[in-house]
């Protein structure tokens, strides 16, 4: 049961170690820490008994603080995301092995602090603790974008990102406190625990539920981001250092989806039923809108940034169907999207380093000089367009299946994502990889060993999950169905 505590506190300890001490090789120290973390999380996975129960859980009441407790644990919904975090962070650290940051110990320390906060978000079962980790995750990523970003003086884009997400989370805080105040306001060690929250929330009046829904939904919608709340995202992704973009797109946006599954749907089920159409339509608009913008991008990086909005739109649409299939598909697709997007951003980073730019006009014909690079690009790209036998297919299939069951025409429009996704990704491949070799790219070297170390695991995982998703599905299955079945009977409220 101390595994969860270890998973949260160990990266924090590494952060202090890295920042506090002068270490000669902070990169390898950080990598070592991340690998230990990965090993422990795999150990947790092996010892995890598939079932709906919360495992490795521990409740430590915080002294003198009105019922807030350090209440953490891992269940089927947390575990895939914990694994995603622990798998991606070592890859992200490795992906920077060619780079020489100034103040590397601070950089890697912040990456690990971010990891601690993310795992905290995914494992907290106390709402205030969840909120604290939610905000804590924002600080390291903000500093990473600010100090090592490509933005010039002023930091306008990073501050826009910070304030945008902060407004969302503060509104969520109002929602959380509102739920607490409508309950009996107990002061025991479980005053803010998940189950108490579900109980209070489900007993609330419809009007109160509607209010809480909007307060909390906005926070998650900004984080994901869903259509009208997405404006911070493309700029931030392009201006952040590559590792920051990977953290943001690979792991951080999953916080929003996880939040909807864990902290929105079961807390205010009636309001979710009432507004799920709104949320679904926003998500679907996001899919189509972002795909169309991605089609006309002239830069590979912004293209991937917009494609990320489209993919996340599909995931959130699936979640808002509140069906087992939809949420299960979201769990798989979150994992797959994390892998794919980290892979893609790394590929783009390599292109930017070797070719000096990721604009399509400067690219073309890389296939001729770098076959291994092209192979990795193809597999990851196919994962992104959800070709069968890649991980993306499993998730998108389940998601679209759930949408069609919910409402055929929504499913049909959301299905466009596969077509449009294939179009913009293949066009991108065509422009960047095939065709005549651009004169500036003659010196484009193929993958080096350090690049292989990052890309090959990603490629392998994409294929393995695509061929044999069973183990990953089994982890979350019973938790998801328990969650969906625990919702009160809402059929009379569902409008045709």
């Amino acid at each position, binding site marked *: 049961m101390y595994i969860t505590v270890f998973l949260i506190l160990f990266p924090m300890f590494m952060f202090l170690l890295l920042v506090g001490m002068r270490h000669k090789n902070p990169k390898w120290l950080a990598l070592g820490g991340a690998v230990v973390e990965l090993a422990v999380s795999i150990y947790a996975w092996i010892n995890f008994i598939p079932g709906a129960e919360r495992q490795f859980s521990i409740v430590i009441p*915080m*002294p*003198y*603080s*009105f019922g807030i407790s350090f209440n953490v644990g891992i269940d089927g919904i947390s575990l895939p995301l914990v694994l995603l975090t622990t798998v991606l962070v070592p890859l992200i650290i490795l992906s920077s092995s060619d780079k020489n940051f100034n103040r590397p110990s601070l950089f890697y320390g912040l990456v690990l602090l971010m990891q601690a906060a993310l795992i905290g978000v995914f494992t907290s079962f106390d709402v*205030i603790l969840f*909120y*604290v980790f939610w*905000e*804590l995750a*924002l*600080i390291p990523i903000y500093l990473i974008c*600010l*100090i090592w970003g490509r933005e010039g*003086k*002023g*930091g306008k884009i*990073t*501050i826009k990102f*910070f*304030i945008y997400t*902060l*407004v969302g989370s*503060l*509104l969520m*805080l*109002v929602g959380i*406190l*509102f739920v*607490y*105040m409508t309950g009996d306001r107990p002061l025991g060690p479980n005053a803010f625990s998940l189950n108490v929250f579900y109980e209070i929330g489900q007993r609330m009046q419809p009007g109160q539920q509607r*209010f809480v829904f909007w307060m909390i939904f906005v926070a998650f919608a900004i984080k994901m981001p869903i259509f009208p709340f997405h404006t911070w995202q493309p700029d931030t992704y392009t201006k952040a250092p590559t590792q920051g973009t990977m953290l943001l797109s690979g792991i951080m946006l999953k916080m929003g989806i996880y939040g909807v599954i864990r902290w929105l749907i079961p807390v205010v089920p009636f309001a979710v039923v009432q507004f799920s159409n709104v949320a679904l339509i926003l998500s679907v608009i996001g899919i189509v809108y972002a795909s169309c913008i991605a089609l006309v991008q002239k830069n590979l990086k912004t293209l991937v940034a917009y494609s990320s909005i489209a993919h996340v739109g599909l995931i959130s649409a699936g979640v808002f169907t509140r069906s087992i299939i939809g949420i299960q598909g979201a769990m798989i697709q979150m994992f797959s999207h994390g892998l794919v997007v980290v892979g893609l951003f790394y590929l783009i980073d390599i292109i930017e380093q070797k070719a000096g730019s990721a604009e399509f006009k400067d690219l073309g014909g890389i296939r001729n000089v770098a076959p291994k690079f092209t192979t990795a690009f193809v597999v990851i790209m196919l994962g992104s367009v959800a070709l069968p036998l890649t991980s993306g297919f499993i998730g998108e299939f389940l998601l679209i299946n759930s949408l069609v069951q919910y409402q055929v025409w929504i499913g049909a429009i959301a299905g466009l994502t596969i077509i449009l996704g294939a179009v913009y990704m293949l066009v991108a491949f065509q422009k960047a990889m095939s065709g005549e070799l651009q004169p500036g790219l003659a010196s484009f070297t193929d993958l080096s060993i350090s690049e292989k170390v990052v890309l090959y695991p990603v490629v392998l995982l994409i294929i393995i999950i695509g061929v044999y998703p069973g183990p990953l599905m089994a982890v979350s299955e019973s938790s998801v169905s328990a969650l969906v079945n625990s919702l009160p009977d809402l059929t009379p409220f569902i409008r045709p």
Partner: protein
Amino acid sequence: MNTLFTIAGVGILALIAEIVNLKRWLTLVVILGLAGALAFLPWYTNHAESAPAFNAMLMFDGSAVAFTWLIVIVTVFWLWMSAGYLRQGEHQTDKTSLVIFVVLGAVIMASFNNMAMLFLGLEILSLSLYALAGSKKDSLSSIESAFKYFLMGSFATGFLIFGIALVYGASHSFNLGEIFNFVKDNPDALPAYFYAGVVLMMVGLAFKISSVPFHFWAPDVYEGAPTAITSLMATVVKIAAIAAFWRIFGIIFCLTASHWVNIVYAMVVLTLVIPNITAIYQQKVKRMLAYSSVAHVGYILLGFVALANGNFVNPLPIIFYLAAYSVSSLAAFSVLIKVEENGGSFSGLYYRNKWLAVTMIVALMSMAGIPPMAGFTAKYLVFIAALSANLVPLVILAVITSAISVYYYFRVIIQMFDKDGSVEPVNVSWSIAILNFIFLVLMIVLGIFPAFDLLMRLIQS
């Protein structure tokens, strides 16, 4: 009340220190004296012990004790931080003793049980401050600040006395308990001029807590005064003014709250919106901190809006907010003082002195209310207080303004990471480094382990 004697004694000792040639160790002696004053304070009181003192002029009840703890501890930190300011130039003993008299006035304002004592405490505090604000005699802006503060302050005191007189006229007493009973016994038969008195007192005290629209003096005075004195105004003086405001409006007049609570709402809304937006346009960190200090009054007043129900206002959120704000604010000012000694520019501070920059970052984040820093827990408490009065729109407004505040706080952070900024390192003495470290730990520990229960026990009486 022995506390009060001790503080006054320390003040007089500081005044005569020049004669007995104690100057070198003066700050240390004063800190020890204040610690001695704390020793006379009970850790917590129960109801029987909180008897009125000095012919019912003062009353050290639970909340007064809590406020006094806060005032004295903050002053000790302030003295530690400002030892350099006190030592530089002439008149070390005068400045030190004036500061101690500020504390004396502040403690009286936290514990008065008689309107006359409120006036006395306020004047002891203000007169000392007028002199301190002008203590940099060769600086024109310091003198301007003192003069402005004096004019505005005496104007406000005029309002306050007028209000006290009207309330006295209605209730025939200066004693808080008797005024409270008078209100309770004649809920429907209060003369109109009683309410006029209440509102005039509110105007007077709103000047002192610098709530909008009575805040216009604050930025100019804060900017002109020596930075150490500015930090004293932003912390100790603010605690005392809020304590007095709470004692008057949170307890004594709370039964009549329905008649004037709308004014408080209006002040909350204005104090949340205007300074937070004005602060964005400030170019100097010191002036930005002045506006931010005004803005924080808005959040503290949010703790008062539970008045709508005619209940006593729970002082816990207010005291905790003041504690968290004072620590963060002192930390920010201590960095500011060091930066001012080294050219006054924050740009590239991280590369010039890492720990100073880290202290500033944590302080600014705490003031912006980002968990797990102390400022978040404080905001959490006042939001809960406002939500318990069902004032959801006010809370949402407060949330939005605190997101706005992030913009101007983080501009400083961005500047500290500016790579093209000046490169000369900032050197910090050991004593200030240790102090900054204590601030850092306090800001995080107050956020994670807020010790509400202890505070509750202290206040309950």
